[in-house]
């Protein structure tokens, strides 16, 4: 359980980091929190001649209010995301999803950029990013580009990032309208990767009708997925009516999934449990809207 030898680089700027990636090509790998990469190196599932440690690149850390939304540096620790007030207020789904990631010791090191770059289909942040139409800011020696979440996740562990590119930040817009958000997942033990999970945001117009529905799913396909059938069924419904039918509407998500069966759960189980979960989380998100309405 010891990684193969490598050359260690600790750049202090994005410019130097992408320079190292360009210079060493496929032989180089960025190291963020190390909570996924180091286990793979230790088990010798992979090896690289050059490790480019991002932990001293200070410009990649931190959360900034951005045009009504937030911009989160890729190296921002999951624990920092969990406790950030601006994120809790403007992107509640990230706040709600974070405690489900591993354990607090993992979140003390693991980064939001590392999760999104690693793109495990059972990970929480990729599903939230997809549900909320987040944007990836990507840098290389040829400049920076922005990729919307809908084009970013390509297949299992595969993203729009090329080997010489660095994910430098993520951007999320805040929702303008009244909205309810909820997140939950099914895992065998606290902290395990989810067998299935759902991230739901529902927005309503002045008449109380649903005008934005975002339903992200994890663990039920080769990438994070949107439950497009559920979203379509919700549009235009009154929030209270949708709440009454949440379980039934959630079941439509079974058609939006592409799960695999493995030692942890069969394909059928993931589909049934996953779509039941979508209904439940949808109910939670809608309940926030209806309680808020009756409170106000």
């Amino acid at each position, binding site marked *: 359980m*010891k990684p193969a030898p490598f050359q260690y680089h*600790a750049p202090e700027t994005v410019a130097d980091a992408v320079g190292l990636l360009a210079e060493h090509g496929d032989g180089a790998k960025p190291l963020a929190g190390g909570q996924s990469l180091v286990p793979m190196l230790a*088990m010798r599932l992979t090896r690289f001649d050059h490790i480019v*440690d991002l932990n001293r690149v200070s410009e990649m850390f931190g959360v900034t209010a951005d045009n009504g939304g937030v911009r989160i540096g890729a190296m921002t620790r999951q624990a920092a995301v969990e406790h950030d007030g601006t994120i809790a207020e403007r992107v509640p789904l990230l706040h709600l999803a974070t405690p489900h990631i591993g354990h607090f010791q993992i979140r003390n090191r693991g980064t939001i950029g590392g999760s999104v770059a690693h793109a495990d289909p059972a990970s929480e942040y990729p599903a939230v990013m997809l549900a909320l139409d987040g944007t990836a800011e990507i840098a290389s020696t040829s400049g920076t580009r922005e990729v919307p979440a809908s084009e970013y996740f390509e297949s299992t562990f595969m993203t729009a990032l090329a080997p010489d590119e660095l994910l430098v930040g993520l951007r999320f817009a805040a929702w303008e309208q009244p909205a309810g958000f909820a997140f939950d997942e099914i895992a065998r*033990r606290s902290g395990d990767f989810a067998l299935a999970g759902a991230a739901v945001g529902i927005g309503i117009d002045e008449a109380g009708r649903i005008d934005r529905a975002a339903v992200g799913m994890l663990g039920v396909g080769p990438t994070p997925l949107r439950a497009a059938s559920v979203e379509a069924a919700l549009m235009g419904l009154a929030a209270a009516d949708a709440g009454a039918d949440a379980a039934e509407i959630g079941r439509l998500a079974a058609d939006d999934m592409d799960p695999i069966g493995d030692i942890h759960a069969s394909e059928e189980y993931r589909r049934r449990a996953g779509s039941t979960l979508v209904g439940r989380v949808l109910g939670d998100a809608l309940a926030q809207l209806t309680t808020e309405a009756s409170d106000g």
Partner: protein
Amino acid sequence: MADAIPVSVTVNNRTRRGLVEPRLTLADFLREQALCTGVHLACEHGVCGSCTVLMDGEAVRSCLLFAVQADGSRITTVEGLAPDEQTLHPVQEAFRDCHGLQCGFCTPGFIISVAAFLEANPNPTDDEIRHGIAGNLCRCTGYQGIVAATRQAAAALREEQP
């Protein structure tokens, strides 16, 4: 082979200088160069929690960090928790009192995790305790003693700092 890199790490309040190969994990550095053999290694890929230490006050897996990354940081292992040789830390005391261990292999990792957990949440519910210790595996106790120890340590620490 990759060149060895000089590092300076403060381990339990003592500065340790060493030459490390980049692939040397912090856990192996602590065990082999700083002689803190209370840092236990079991899974060596981040799952079991036996190697948990405090890095600049935060609980982390020392098997998932390279020693070069800890250059300039402050590490606390189970050896550095108690105030002196004769006194146990309240978390250690509680593990002894409540049968929070049997074989003892996982114990250093649990002690560090629980100390960090109680620092962040001094008055946890039993449910919070169970989530708080979920990142450490014990194959002997069935966890009941560990939950009881965490409860007792929480009360003792609250009394220390009212």
